[in-house]
């Protein structure tokens, strides 16, 4: 079908010959350079086949000029990150944890690194930001079972708590007074009343008085005569407002009956020394550091 080109009477422009319900389309064609640009981009794309991995072959694929893969890129990126960190890591290795705070640049580095390592390794139990969970102590408050100084935190991180694989691990073992029948049921009730009385919550003053004797004979050796705890033994203070497993009468009774045996892994050998130092500085800074 070949018809003569028709011009629009009003504008003097050629029409395309297309007509819809009496409306004719004017022919205002795209400039040809626009099409050339399209072809240039097509040719440009061929360059990608040459430089980057592209087409699959029967058993393999085209590797590209530089053999680029995401895996090698990852390794390169990680290597360059490690190289950037290296000078800081060297300085960290040379310094004692207590000296890091004097170097504000290194302190910033440790805080940022510690935060990342904490999120990967510690947050599942201690919570993001170290806010703690029942049975897993808050690292932000001012109560520390094994000490809240930089050195004490550093040591705990190294050896863990009740971590059998580590010889020097932080260790204590509260007897299960009820389960192992070391105390009678009414003795346990008395001593719980006595413990509650430290925070003025005893409901039976007579029982609390009786419990004082039980406490002195069974508990004071670890928790201290004044019940304020002994940090060297990891024995918690029973007179403050912080309860690792809960401070209600029921949970204290449960603790005395069955004991508690929280465990924290030793990070020595799992994380390198510099990383443990960064973690120490970070945990110390959360608000409870002493």
């Amino acid at each position: 079908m070949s018809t003569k080109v028709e011009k629009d009477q009003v504008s003097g422009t050629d029409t395309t010959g297309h007509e819809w319900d009496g409306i004719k389309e004017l022919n205002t064609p795209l400039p040809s350079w626009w099409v050339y640009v399209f072809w240039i981009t097509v040719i440009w794309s061929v360059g990608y086949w040459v430089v980057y991995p592209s087409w699959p072959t029967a058993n393999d694929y085209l590797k590209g000029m530089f053999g680029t893969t995401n895996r090698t890129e990852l390794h390169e990126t990680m290597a360059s990150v490690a190289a950037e960190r290296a000078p800081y890591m060297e300085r960290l290795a040379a310094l004692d944890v207590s000296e890091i705070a004097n170097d504000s640049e290194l302190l910033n580095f440790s805080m940022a690194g510690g935060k990342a390592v904490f999120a990967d390794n510690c947050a599942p139990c201690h919570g993001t930001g170290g806010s703690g969970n029942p049975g897993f102590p808050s690292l932000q408050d001012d109560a520390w079972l094994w000490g809240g100084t930089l050195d004490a935190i550093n040591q705990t991180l190294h050896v863990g708590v009740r971590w059998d694989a580590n010889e020097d691990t932080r260790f204590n073992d509260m007897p299960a007074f009820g389960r192992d029948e070391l105390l009678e049921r009414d003795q346990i009730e008395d001593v719980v009343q006595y413990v509650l009385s430290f925070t003025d919550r005893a409901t039976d003053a007579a029982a609390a008085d009786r419990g004082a004797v039980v406490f002195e004979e069974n508990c004071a050796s670890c928790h201290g005569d004044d019940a304020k705890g002994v940090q060297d033994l990891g024995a918690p203070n029973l007179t403050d407002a912080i309860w690792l497993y809960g401070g209600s009468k029921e949970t204290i009774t449960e603790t005395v009956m069955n004991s508690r045996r929280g465990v924290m892994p030793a990070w020595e050998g799992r994380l390198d020394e510099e990383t443990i130092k960064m973690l120490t500085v970070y945990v110390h800074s959360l608000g409870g550091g002493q």
Partner: protein
Amino acid sequence: MAMSTLQQPDIEPKNVPHIVDEGDYDEVPLYKKRDKVYPKRVSGRFRNLKWFALIALLGIYWVVPWLRWDRGPSAPDQAVLIDMDLGRAYFFFIEIWPQEVYYITGILIMAAVGLFLATSLFGRIWCGYGCPQTVWTDLFMLVERYIQGDRNARVRLDKSKWTLEKIWKVGATHVAWIAISMATGGAFVLYFHDAPTVMVDIFTANATFGTYVTIAFLTGSTYLLAGWAREQVCTYMCPWPRFQSAMLDDESMIVTYESWRGETRGPIKRKNLVRGEVPETGHCIDCHACVNVCPTGIDIRDGLQLECIGCGLCIDACNEMMDKVGFPRDLVRFDSVQNSQLRSQGKATRVRIIRPRTIFYSLLLVIIAVVMMFGLANRSVLELNVLRDRNPLFVALSDGDVRNGYTLKVLNKEQAEKTYVLSLEGIDATDFQIIGLTPNQDGTYDLDVAPDRVGSFRVFVAADPQTLDGKSTPFEFTVTDKETGNTETYDTVFAGPENDR
């Protein structure tokens, strides 16, 4: 109504045959071949205006980075500088921090409304005089004309065989274009670094990779757009010509052809000139001078059209011819469509600047300008931001108190070392400490912040739950400039346990 009169010159039928013998549809190419434009040299009022705009705008572009402005030792002394590394923008006495980027938004809105206003008053003068595409194209054409000669010489040169002379002329043109392009790209990076320093760095190969990439990219785009693409940018790439008619009305001053006087066009008859008689044809002698000088290669006699950038060079060209043949000037003139019609009816013309449309645009412009000026005049030199810890909301302490943690950001926007006193109000704090600082006698803290910097402080506040107002107790942090007494407060809350527990 306005639109119908505006479009009238276009509606007159062209009296073309309905079917023309330009071939069959299956012979029509799908894409349009580029018709190269060879604008002829012209002189006159509008050309002078264009020269002035060219020199002024290029001058501003190349000179501004070298202007100095003393801000003291703690800040750069470049009058106009966008410091990407530090996140500061300097414009003479104004300094903008990243969070104040809304000033840029304000400037962009003002530029847009200003463009609308200018267009409704004077048509596309931005396109014809101000747009970088126009300015650089004009400069490139000047170079081209200087080396290759005027329109006819260039047409001949393009058609001629490749001789040594042609190679020399075309080569020299492109070398000159690339040199200008490099100067253009090179000047751009000066706005983002200290100009004298980066200039030395560029030539001693010490500048950053990004600097060279930027220069290379802008060199390439300048060369391509001003040397090769030219009017194609305005016609096919730029969105502005497509919606400019929304700003125009029939009182807008635009470049118009007085068709009532010019038609019927035709070559001048010698006898009319000799006898001084009224010509049988219109005043348009169909000499194509207006077409030959047009930088976009259009015929203004077809009326207002998308491709017209409103530069008015056709007016200069036509006036020159009219003077030669002794007809009245301004057959092509800078006037409104309405005036052209009034004149054709022998009525008095008028130029009305104040119209509802221009009042609206001006009002908008003034309002935005006033808001901006007010904002700038009242720009605080001290800001306090408090980020409250949310994980956890509060920490229970061994003595039964609860503690909240806050991160304070103190923004010192002055070029001087500052000491601010931080105090608490509205809470009965049992403990108030800042990591790394010791409190003053009265329990407040002195915060030192370097000039033009943000000080970041970790603050712990503890309180007895008995004194708290339930889960959330409002209180405020206050920083006071020790010297000036300038004060900034931030309302925050202290989170605690619920009362009934």
